[in-house]
């Protein structure tokens, strides 16, 4: 479970990038996080994962406060950042091993998971190559595999499907569903409204740092008394006029 309580954040003393955000992502659910560019999605994710300090409010992951118990909280989640361009001079296998060491994954389990996930994502044969030589999609797959090998309860994914080929995108979506069905939490930001509509149990829509809707698709349609697609509602909700 992720609990975001009254969280605010501003940069250089300017207007609040995030303004008193309250959001609870329960176990067993996939929640899509939507918003236009610059709405505050990445800032929220960065605060949830300890990358940015929180100005006001608290964020708890599985009951662990990210600011007061950072190490324990960080062990409970896996993050797929929006840019998978990291550790480019390591080989794929070295990166995964590094993650395994950091999260203390036993060697046998590590080997089993690396083999399983990289074969599933069709990157096994590239494990001995430098990440630098990977395409964007392959980098994304390696980062996702890095999250999966330590099997965290909470998945936080920032634009996880960007750059993935259809087969890998399908596999990842299946995995997200299966992970949530096991009683875990999946929180992901996306600009792909169709994916969110099809995959998520609930959507949170943020605009200019404020949460403007949180609920499932039926609630969305009921609240705005419309039968329109998520795309139309989203465009209406986030328009400036």
């Amino acid at each position: 479970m992720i609990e975001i309580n009254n969280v605010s954040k501003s940069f250089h003393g300017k207007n609040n990038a995030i303004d008193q955000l309250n959001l609870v992502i329960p176990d067993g659910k996939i929640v899509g996080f939507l918003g236009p560019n610059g709405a505050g999605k990445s800032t929220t994710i960065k605060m949830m994962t300890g990358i940015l300090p929180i100005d006001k409010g608290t964020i708890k992951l599985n009951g662990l406060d990210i600011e007061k118990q950072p190490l324990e909280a960080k062990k409970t989640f896996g993050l797929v950042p929006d840019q998978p361009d990291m550790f480019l001079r390591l080989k794929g296998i070295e990166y995964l091993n590094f993650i395994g060491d950091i999260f203390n994954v036993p060697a046998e389990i590590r080997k089993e998971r690396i083999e399983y996930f990289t074969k599933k994502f069709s990157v096994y044969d590239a494990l001995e190559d430098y990440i630098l030589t990977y395409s964007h999609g392959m980098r994304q797959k390696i980062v996702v595999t890095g999250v999966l090998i330590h099997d965290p309860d909470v998945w936080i994914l920032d634009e996880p499907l960007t750059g993935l080929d259809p087969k890998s995108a399908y596999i990842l979506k299946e995995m997200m569903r299966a992970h949530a069905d096991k009683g875990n939490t999946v929180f992901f930001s996306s600009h792909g409204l169709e994916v969110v509509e099809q995959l998520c149990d609930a959507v949170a829509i943020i605009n200019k740092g404020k949460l403007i809707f949180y609920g499932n698709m039926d609630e969305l349609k009921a609240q705005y008394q419309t039968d329109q697609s998520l795309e139309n509602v989203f465009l209406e909700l986030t328009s400036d006029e």
Partner: protein
Amino acid sequence: MNNTWLLIKTMLKMQYSNAGKKGSNLWLYVVAFIFLLPVSIIYISFINGFIHSLYSGLQPFGQESALLGILFLGIHLLLFIMSLVTVLSAFYFADDIQSYIPFPFHPYQLLIGKAASPFLYLYVTSAIIFLPVFFSYGSAGGESLFYYLYGIILFMLLPIIPFAIAAIILMFMMRFVNVAKNKDRSKVIAGISSFLLIILFNIFIRLKTNSNEMVEELTVIFQKQDGLLEMVTVFYPPAYLSASALGDSQSWLGLIYFIAMLALTAGALLLFAWLGQLLYLKGVLGLNNSGKHKLSKQKMQRKMKRRPVRLSYITKELKIIFRTPTFLMQCVMQGLFGPILVVVILLFDFGTGLSLEFLDTLSDKQILLLLFIASFIIISTNVTAVSSVSREGKTWYTNLFFPLEPNQVLFSKIAASWIINLFVITLFFILSLLVTVPVVVVLIWLVTILTASWLTSSFGTYLDLLKPKLNWTDEQELFKGRFIGFIGFLIQAGILGIFTWFLWRSDAVENLYATSLILLGLLLVCIFIVYKLIDKKINSNVFQDI
């Protein structure tokens, strides 16, 4: 021309823009200025005195123009060596060229654009060395207005020829090296080759200089007007033409030399642009990073070993340093370059049976202190520690979402820098055995320098933590225009230098063991203080604020 100018402006902006940088580096500039002001006054007055006395010594023999010859030859040589390094980094190591290639620019325009940043460095260097000597010579000889006019124009042209020569050599070399088709490997091969070139050049010059023959030749040369100038610049016309243009500035002859020099410079520039048009993109393009390797079952099994977090992190740091050509050159090779050059000089100056006679006049304590301060100065100039945090660039945030304690991250970074210093320390170790330093002194030195290496690694990491440079798009930018390493060096070398000098002079501490204990004690106190400073920073949550 418009496109070339646009490229120059854009490329300079990319290198030196303050966009995205937090806070101001003003205080760093103030500190640097305070340190540099007295140094530059002393420097200029020293040069002035030196040139005046040389001038008055050589003038009666009609050989004063040799000073200008040596000046031009020396500065061209220095600019050539600097160009080798800067051309390599700007033209070939920087990956930003990929962003410009899709645009409709000629290769020569890209080349000129890329040359802008190295040229700034070359001008700064020329200004520091050339201008004081040039003005001192002018005042010593009471030179005419033409001397100053020609001199300033020649100063503006100074970097062109050495830069063009270095660039042409490297463009040919990279065209050849590029056969390997592996970007990183090509960069490393080219980088190491240019260091070797400099060392070989040094050896060549040393082999050529035979002191007995020189005395005989000099006697003949001194009998001829400007003979010394001709001897000094015989192999290198640009130095001869420049020096003659200034030396004969009051006559028509000077004007002819001056025009000849302008023509030569224009020729070098055209040759550079023409060869660049032909060779440059062929050397850069076609380089790729790929290389398919299959992972065998056995290899997979071997690689799956579970390691402690710190060890894993240190290994990651070292792998990244050794595999990133810019980091390898800056952090590892440059540190080794100095000591290797010293070994070469010693080998050639003292023959094979090495023994430094002056060592016999020193006590064991003094040998220890000398060895210690020399090796410390070299390791404290290493940039591994002062780039600990900055090397991560935009991926620094990964350290924040992984379940790692800040001190685990910093410890691993300090340890990585310490390990890299081991290369230099090993070289010094070999060197000290070559010059027959007593074994006990070597062993004690080893303990003190290994401790000092931890100090300089910790202090450098702390400095980088204070003002990291994460917003780079290319590794090259990370090492440009950063004073923090230099300031760190001044502080460390200053404190330990004064302390070593104090121990050297002190009659109270004569014993080798007492000296080493005091030195070790001081190092441990310094390490303790640096650790306290790092702790303070960690507690103020500096990690997230970077």
